[in-house]
């Protein structure tokens, strides 16, 4: 079992495209399910280290520990769900290429233990994200993709600058080695490096001050793509950002700054969504809000809170995917994603799915989102961060206001169209909601996984060279 499979198998599938160009949707499902299975089989062999070395400086190191395993499993799961969702819509070459590449990119990002490799996977995932944005091939799509590229190119400039400065000052790129020697760098340069990395990852991880592009991009892309962005892309960058943060032992004041940024992200996003009438933008803002909470929680570098944040990443990813896929169904039917479409259809199952996933997103019991939120709140309270508790609770009300405004449409209005939802889609969406309900009612196993992951993330998993 090699970690390289997570990168090589998708790439192989891409190279062999000409062989099965008519069955890409099926191949995509098979590929993602295979990767999910592979990820699940890794459970008992953690942590895993994989080194492909020509000579020492040229080594490519992949590491899979508890935290990255959790995310990898999540990513492959979401990829599988999304590809299963697209099964009904037949062959789509552009989607296959872009999404498979995105899978490579995000898996590589969390597996890489080498800053330059991280940069490469950063770029791969970015390029595939640009492609995904442009998938609809209309003015909105291209406009969005161009915006995205401008911001993305800017981000990669700063990431590159940071990496270059690190190599110039200590001559290593392996994360473990950097962690050991980072203290040797002159403090001012240290700060510059951290700042460059922060700008680079922060833009992609959609943190406040750097995230003003996000709503437009979600609006420009398909709803089903939105699920990938929100569940995979931003989370992988966020993970790398905090992985580095913990490894480089940043100062408490810098952690505090990150927490502040997280809180700002949360507040700004929830308030922005309050007036929005474009459902994709609303979901984008809600994603930003959750990222804000996750950032806030992770910034405390506390085992319990980090576990809670990981839990939130998981539950949010599943809930958001369900919501975006359901929205995709609506968008395909109405050719619009304005929030009024929620009042224009009648499909009890779909409405139920949207309502329940929305409740989980809001952190309302008995869904898994509640467990995550409760853990975050109790974690914050046990660190005596009562201000943060109050903030999260207060601003969650704003979140509730706009989410429930969407849901209200279900029981209101007249002249609704009956919307046909295929049984396969029902099965898929139902599975996601069951997942949320199941982990909401029996959160213990998932919480334990998250705790183990948080411990490994905070423990600073140096890989001996």
């Amino acid at each position, binding site marked *: 079992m090699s970690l390289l499979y997570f990168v090589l198998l998708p790439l192989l599938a891409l190279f062999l495209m000409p062989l099965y160009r008519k069955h890409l949707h099926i191949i995509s499902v098979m590929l993602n399910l295979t990767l999910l299975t592979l990820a699940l089989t890794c459970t008992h062999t953690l942590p895993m280290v994989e080194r492909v070395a020509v000579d020492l400086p040229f080594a490519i190191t992949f590491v899979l520990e508890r935290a990255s395993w959790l995310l990898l499993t999540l990513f492959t799961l979401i990829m599988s769900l999304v590809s299963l969702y697209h099964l009904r819509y037949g062959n789509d070459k552009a989607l296959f290429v872009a999404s498979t590449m995105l899978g490579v990119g995000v898996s590589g990002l969390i597996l890489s233990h080498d800053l330059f490799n991280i940069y490469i996977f950063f770029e791969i995932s970015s390029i595939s994200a640009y492609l995904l944005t442009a998938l609809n091939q209309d003015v909105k799509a291209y406009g969005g993709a161009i915006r995205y590229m401008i*911001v993305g190119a800017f981000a990669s400039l700063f990431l590159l600058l940071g990496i270059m400065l690190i190599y110039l000052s200590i001559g290593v790129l392996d994360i473990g080695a950097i962690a050991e020697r980072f203290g040797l760098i002159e403090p001012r340069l240290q700060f510059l490096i951290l700042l460059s990395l922060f700008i680079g990852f922060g833009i992609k991880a959609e943190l406040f001050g*750097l995230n003003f592009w996000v*709503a437009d991009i979600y609006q420009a892309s398909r709803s089903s793509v939105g699920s990938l962005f929100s569940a995979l892309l931003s989370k992988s960058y966020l993970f790398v950002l905090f992985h580095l943060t913990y490894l480089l032992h940043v100062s408490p004041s810098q952690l505090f700054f990150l927490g502040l940024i997280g809180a700002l992200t949360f507040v700004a996003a929830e308030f922005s*969504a309050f007036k929005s009438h474009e459902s994709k933008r609303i979901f984008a803002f809600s994603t930003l809000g959750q990222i804000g909470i996750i950032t806030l929680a992770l910034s405390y570098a506390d085992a319990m809170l980090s576990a809670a944040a990981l839990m939130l990443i998981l539950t949010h990813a599943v809930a958001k995917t369900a919501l975006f896929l359901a929205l995709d169904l609506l968008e395909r039917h109405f050719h619009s994603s304005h929030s009024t479409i929620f009042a224009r259809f009648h499909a009890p199952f779909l409405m139920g799915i949207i309502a329940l996933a929305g409740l989980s997103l809001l952190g309302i019991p008995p869904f898994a989102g509640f467990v995550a939120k409760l853990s975050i709140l109790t974690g914050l309270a046990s660190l005596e961060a*009562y201000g943060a508790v109050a903030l999260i609770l207060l601003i969650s*009300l704003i979140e509730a206001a706009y989410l429930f405004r969407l849901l209200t449409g279900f029981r*209101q209005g007249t002249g609704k169209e009956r919307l046909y939802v295929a049984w396969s889609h029902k099965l898929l969406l139902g599975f996601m909601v069951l997942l949320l309900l199941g982990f909401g009612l029996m959160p213990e196993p998932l919480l334990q996984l998250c705790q183990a992951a948080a411990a490994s993330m905070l423990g600073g998993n140096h890989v001996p060279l």
Partner: protein
Amino acid sequence: MFHFEATLLAHLFFGLSLLVILPLLRRRDLVLHLLLLLSLGILFYASSLATLFIGWEMMGWSSYFILASSARVATLQRYILFNLGGAFALLGAIALLYGFMGSLEYRDIDASLLPPWAMNAIALLLFVAVFVKSGIIGLHDWVVDSYSEATPLFSAILSAILSKAGIYLFIVMFMVLLKEGATEPLLFEIMAWLGVITSIVATFKAISQDEMRRLLAYSSIAQIGYIITILALMQGFALEAALYHTLIHTLIKLLLFMNIASIIAITQKERFSELGGMIYHAPVLFLLLVIGIIALAGMPLLGGFNSKFLIYTALLEEKRALLLGAVMFSSASAFLYCYKLVYGIYLGQRPQEASLHVSPKSYYLPQLLSAALLVLLALLPSLPVGYLSVIGVELGFAPLDDSNLFILQSAFGSFHGGALMGAFGVAFVALLGLLQLAHSKAKKVKDPLDISYCGEVPRSETNLHFGYGMGYELHRISFIAPLLRHHSRVLWDRLSLIASDFSALLSSLYSLSAQHVTLLALLLFTLLLLGGQ
């Protein structure tokens, strides 16, 4: 200690109300109603704060979705936001408690470990949760609209059952879990006065309503105001009084809302101004409503007096004279809306045009059941006392004496329900007999318009039902008018306006062009570089 949850309130709410109403429901909402039932179960049988909260929130959202089929969007927004606001306050309190206890299980909570500031903060947060759910004045906006816009049957559930959740929460948190906590007594003092002020203001508001269910909604707020006041005493006998009143109020509101549901089904009308004179079309409903309002007014001869009596004597025992005066004032003012309710619907002249339908027979069952229980409780006022005392005893309070079921005992006196009923019955029958046996014969008028009308004869188009506007003159009384003129809604609307302005400002950031976004990022970089050194 903790099988408390499984006793009175659970039995009461499950056994009595929901099961009576459930068979009546439209099929498509059945799942949601079952969820609501389930959430109550979770709430009552919880053994940890997390489970309690799950029940609390499920109750909120399942009722929201039931409500959503009939209410306006603004009402729904208000409903869910107030409810979630309360729920999040509860969540804040739970998080705070966890910060000190490290566990959410009931058995692990020891409030004596809490420093005073934390205990007070928790108490305040819990107050918010309790007050929102109970519709304490200022936080009551959601109650009235949702009661009046729900389907008639769901109004009954909302008022009879869900409105009591706040009381349950208070008892569980303050009297069971946080009993040892060093809560500032001033907080309870404020709570007591808030409760009674709520009941006074709500009573006046109720009197000036023109819609039946809005009147009853304000009445519910007022009744729960008493319960809040009495609970704030934090005494065993007060707890029993509060629980007794909860029981009575549940019965009354079930009866009244079902009665009104019947009327709405018959006439398709909601306002007093469009109703009137129903007594001779629906005499049984009239009698049931009369039983309801007499109990609601707290008069002897029906169960409503029992709990009022316990409340008053509890306040007397604590020597809270002014508080008691205010409660009695509010209670006396309630006569006005009680009469308005019965007059506006059943008495006076019947408006011309209306066509009548038939009320579903199934609506009668809960009404008859409640009415029968109210009469039974009047006869045997101590019947539920033993049951109520169980809770108090579990919490370490002395039980009330219920050796004679006819007599309701309290430290400030007692009364004999049977004697009251008997005396009234004998007097009533004797006087009725006297009247019947009189030489004089009663002659029924042929035309209902044959009334003394300043020497004139009113015509059919003359508006003779203007009595429905009773209570309007309260607007002319200097110290009541401001209460009726001002609405806390203005405050909340302004708050939401501020939020949406802020929202517009922030969301404009998210529509910036890519260049501006990069410029901002660069600025952030520069600022941090210069400032962060």
